[in-house]
């Protein structure tokens, strides 16, 4: 059966999803949302760009005769259908059938339910804080025994939800992970992003690192960056760790901890492997 699917373009991802839901006459938990183009709001970037989403009504809701219930139930997305052949592999409810033949499953499959629980829990938290929001799963990957679930939030008040230096975003992510490990008791890790703040921030941090390193190299004077949380300091360290000219270290305590970039001196050649020192 063909799933009902439409594409909508709007100023923001959230607007597009809303319009799509209105057109389809369904609620958020009855559809799968695929973001085709991220909108750019102009808050962070210069120009704004429309967002484009494809919204597909999940099959189990297509042939359901019952009218849509008024209370949004975030966890109903992948409840097992009662019918269906009970073959060996469980189908996770995708509308496209993946018939790649049977590939051996070396890794235990992550549970789609966990992903939905993570998504639903974050959505519920933001709803209760009265932040209008749409949470989508932007990816799932595995890192050893841990399942990483990437969630992306589209919202109106993006700046407030991110907070100064990403503090509110970090708090939300920390809380979400604490709640989930308490309820699921499994090793999953959720990475929350808000309108790609993390990607953009990482790029701008690398830019900051490289420009500061360049200055250090020219002026042969250390440069101290502004205070940053651990994950951001790490991006700076990693960006410059291969530099033959500068060394990085962190100094200060707690929220005041910051990275100092200083010229590498003859004696500070910690890594014997970097042989290109110039006289």
């Amino acid at each position, binding site marked *: 059966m063909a799933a009902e699917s439409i594409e909508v373009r709007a100023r923001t991802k959230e607007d597009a999803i809303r319009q799509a839901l209105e057109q389809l006459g369904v609620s958020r938990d009855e559809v799968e949302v695929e973001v085709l183009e991220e909108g750019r709001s102009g808050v962070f970037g210069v120009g704004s760009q429309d967002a484009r989403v494809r919204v597909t009504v999940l099959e189990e809701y297509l042939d359901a005769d019952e009218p849509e219930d008024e209370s949004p139930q975030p966890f109903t997305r992948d409840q097992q259908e009662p019918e269906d052949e009970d073959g060996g592999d469980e189908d996770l409810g995708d509308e496209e059938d993946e018939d790649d033949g049977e590939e051996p499953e070396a890794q235990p499959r992550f549970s789609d339910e966990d992903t939905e629980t993570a998504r639903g*829990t974050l959505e519920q938290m933001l709803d*209760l804080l009265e932040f209008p929001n749409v949470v989508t799963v932007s990816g799932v990957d595995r890192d050893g025994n841990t399942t990483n679930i990437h969630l992306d939030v589209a919202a109106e008040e993006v700046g407030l939800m991110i907070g100064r230096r990403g503090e*509110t975003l970090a708090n939300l992510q920390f*809380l979400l992970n604490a*709640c989930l490990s308490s309820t699921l008791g499994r090793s999953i890790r959720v990475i929350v992003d808000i309108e790609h703040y993390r990607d953009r921030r990482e790029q701008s941090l690398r830019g900051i690192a490289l420009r500061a390193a360049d200055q250090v190299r020219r002026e042969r004077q250390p440069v101290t960056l502004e205070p940053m949380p651990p994950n951001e300091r790490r991006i700076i360290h990693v960006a410059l760790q291969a530099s033959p000219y500068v060394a990085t270290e962190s100094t200060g305590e707690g929220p005041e901890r910051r990275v100092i970039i200083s010229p590498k001196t003859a004696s500070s050649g910690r890594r014997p492997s970097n042989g290109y020192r110039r006289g």
Partner: protein
Amino acid sequence: MKEFLEYVTRLLAEAPDQVEVAETVDGTNVTYELSVAPSDVGRIIGREGRVIRAIRGVLRAAGARQGLRVSLQVR
């Protein structure tokens, strides 16, 4: 905000039915008093106070948007 606090605390607690939140509003100051089972206090506070700090941070951000100063105590 009260509902958020209740929701999060109940997910964290092992005895969610013993979670209670009292809200006091005084002008623009909002105070929440959270009480949980004694065995759950550690879970709500977290290692080095990280959980309670995250809760406070989120409440502060949500409150600031309505011009409110939010404080939270655990009993």
